[in-house]
């Protein structure tokens, strides 16, 4: 069916985007309002993908191309979004930006904590001045509310806002929350396979991956969980963030656990930041207890749980207190599962590729699972109100400082149950373990000094 084309619909479809020609369902003329760029350029004899920014040699392959009749390079890195090859053209809109309909007034009557209010002011300032700021907020600080007033200020000034996060789960949770407080502005949720892909809206919640399809689109770019996999690993995602924002725009980073470099920059005054060291419920973060777990891996291979780990689990079962037990890898977790199930057959385990991951998380919420073993997949994002947390094998490399801080941050989340217990069982203390504990203590200290904690 032919789609009616008006110049305005083409503008709305293309504004702020960088798309493959074949992704555009309109005939593309040689209008001065359109700019075409070659999908792959060559820089210093290296290929460069103009969509995802890949330059690594292994990310490109050659094929005998039927379109151009030559040996044609293509980018394997962003292939799943449609192949960018040497003869593909990417198109962008360089005409006037279409206006948004609707109204960006905030409808929210909640109260910000003192820490949130300070951060909220910093966000508003960054939006107004097109500057950068890092919001360093502990797990449970309530970082979403911190954004509300800044987003409102942007929308009322006809600015376009994007919140980028590494996880689809977070997009799905955040978009309706924002739509509720901005009922008269259209909120678009973008993730692999989402139906919203083609709508033009002033407020976009997107996975970092989907940013590849944008170019100079946003006046305000908010990057959630900057330290989280895969964003921190992927220079191409950094490229995507930079490409998707306008040259003159605000850049706001949110995280509970900035990496070493960032923490240092903050200390040296080289990076503007605001810290929220206290949770919204005014109770301190649970400080992890460290305990020698011995050669737990060997014990599990021999078919038994280390005594203290077993006792920890049994105590939770007896007291009817739910808990998450984190493992460094799937294989050791799956070996341990039957040993835990001897204590209680309803104990379950979950990992990233687990097809019933969602169901297990739901069962945990409904208290049908007493203890849930997990890889780092539940390290962030997912919140259960009243749980204890243990890490088995905290010495493993996968447990970085930020992973351990995030894991400890799962406990004591609700105001009704602010006191979860956190235990790190280890086979040798690592720097990361010590840093994580120091990090949490430091936050509590700062929270107390500010008078943002009640005890």
């Amino acid at each position: 069916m032919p789609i009616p084309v008006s110049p305005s619909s083409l503008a709305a479809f293309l504004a702020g985007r960088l798309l493959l020609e074949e992704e555009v369902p309109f005939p593309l003329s040689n209008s001065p309002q359109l700019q075409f760029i070659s999908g792959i350029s060559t820089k210093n004899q290296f290929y460069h993908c103009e969509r995802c920014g890949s330059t690594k040699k292994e990310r490109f392959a050659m094929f005998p191309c039927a379109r151009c009749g030559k040996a044609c390079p293509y980018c394997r890195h962003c292939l799943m979004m449609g192949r960018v090859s040497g003869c593909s053209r990417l198109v962008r809109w360089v005409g006037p930006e279409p206006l948004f309909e609707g109204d960006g007034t905030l409808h929210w009557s909640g109260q910000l904590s003192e820490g949130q209010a300070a951060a909220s002011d910093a966000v508003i300032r960054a939006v107004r001045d097109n500057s950068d700021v890092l919001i360093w907020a502990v797990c449970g600080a309530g970082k979403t509310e911190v954004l509300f007033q800044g987003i409102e200020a942007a929308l009322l000034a006809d600015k376009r806002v994007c919140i980028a996060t590494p996880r689809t789960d977070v997009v799905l949770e955040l978009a309706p929350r924002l739509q509720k407080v901005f009922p008269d502005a259209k909120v678009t949720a973008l993730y692999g396979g989402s139906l919203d892909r083609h709508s033009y809206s002033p407020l976009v919640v997107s996975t970092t991956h989907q940013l590849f399809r944008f170019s100079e689109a946003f006046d305000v770019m908010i990057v959630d969980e900057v330290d989280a996999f895969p964003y921190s690993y992927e220079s191409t995602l950094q490229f995507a963030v930079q490409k998707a924002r306008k040259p003159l725009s605000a850049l706001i980073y949110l995280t509970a656990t900035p990496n070493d470099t960032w923490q240092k920059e903050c200390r040296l005054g080289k990076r503007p930041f605001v810290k929220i060291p206290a949770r919204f419920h005014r109770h301190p973060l649970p400080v992890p207890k460290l305990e020698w777990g011995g050669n737990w891996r060997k014990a599990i291979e021999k078919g038994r749980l280390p005594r203290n780990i077993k006792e920890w689990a049994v105590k939770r079962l007896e007291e009817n207190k739910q808990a998450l037990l984190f493992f460094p890898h799937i294989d050791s977790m799956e070996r341990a599962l039957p040993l835990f199930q001897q204590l209680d057959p309803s104990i379950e385990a979950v990992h990233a590729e687990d097809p019933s991951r969602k169901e297990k998380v739901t069962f945990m919420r409904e208290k049908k699972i007493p203890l849930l073993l997990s890889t780092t997949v539940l390290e962030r994002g997912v919140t259960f109100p009243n749980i204890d947390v243990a890490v088995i094998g905290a010495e493993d490399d996968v447990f970085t400082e930020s992973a351990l801080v995030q894991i400890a941050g799962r406990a004591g989340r609700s105001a009704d149950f602010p006191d979860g217990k956190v235990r790190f069982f280890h086979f040798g203390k690592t720097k990361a373990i010590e840093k994580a504990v120091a990090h949490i203590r430091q936050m509590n200290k700062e929270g107390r000094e500010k008078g943002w904690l009640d005890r």
Partner: protein
Amino acid sequence: MNGCLLCEEETNRSLNWRQFFLLEAPPALCLKCHSTFERITGEHCRTCSKPLAAIDPAFIADGICSDCLRWEEDLTFQGVLTGNSSLYSYNEAMKEFIARFKYRGDYVLARAFAEEIKEAVKKIPFDLVVAVPLSEERLYERGFNQAEALAKEAGLETADVFERIHSEKQSKKSRTERLQGPQVFRLKEKTVISNKKILIIDDIYTTGSTLRQAALLLKQAGAVEVRSLTLARGQGT
């Protein structure tokens, strides 16, 4: 350093001594990825390679599956395809693999099973290799012909003898519709075919109808025997 074509993990660790001394190409897939595919071993239909274990014995006669028996009852298609060999079953991993290779257009994946295709071809008697052609529009869309890519990366020279005259949408029709429908292919080159044994390469054997259409045309043009080799064997009817 060699990375697995699917997961980018290094594959060097799994080299055998022949690969280590560069007598053979290193594996294109790591062991973990490779193990997700299911090679067709054990008893299979003598004509089409369909694993017999999955079929009700009532639908097998003399080592030939009921699908093939039905084809042989059809006077037009009787005996046009001497046999088909398929390397892998069309399980989830293969489904994903073919989607990425063919629809997403990840050309290099044609190398993933090239060595195995090379080996398999050694057991098939043929004079000439042809790839199932794509229509012009589909070829433009995908940028390459997946059957051709499989052949080429396995070191097989293909002869450009026919073309597709009906679009691939044709293949969505039901079996009977297709059986009675007009030819999907047209010959471009007749002379090289006569008295030759032909091997047709394709990515997947689903109903066998595309391959039989092609085989029929080749037979009519004078081929003495037509066989086919596909990477995957689907469970079509």
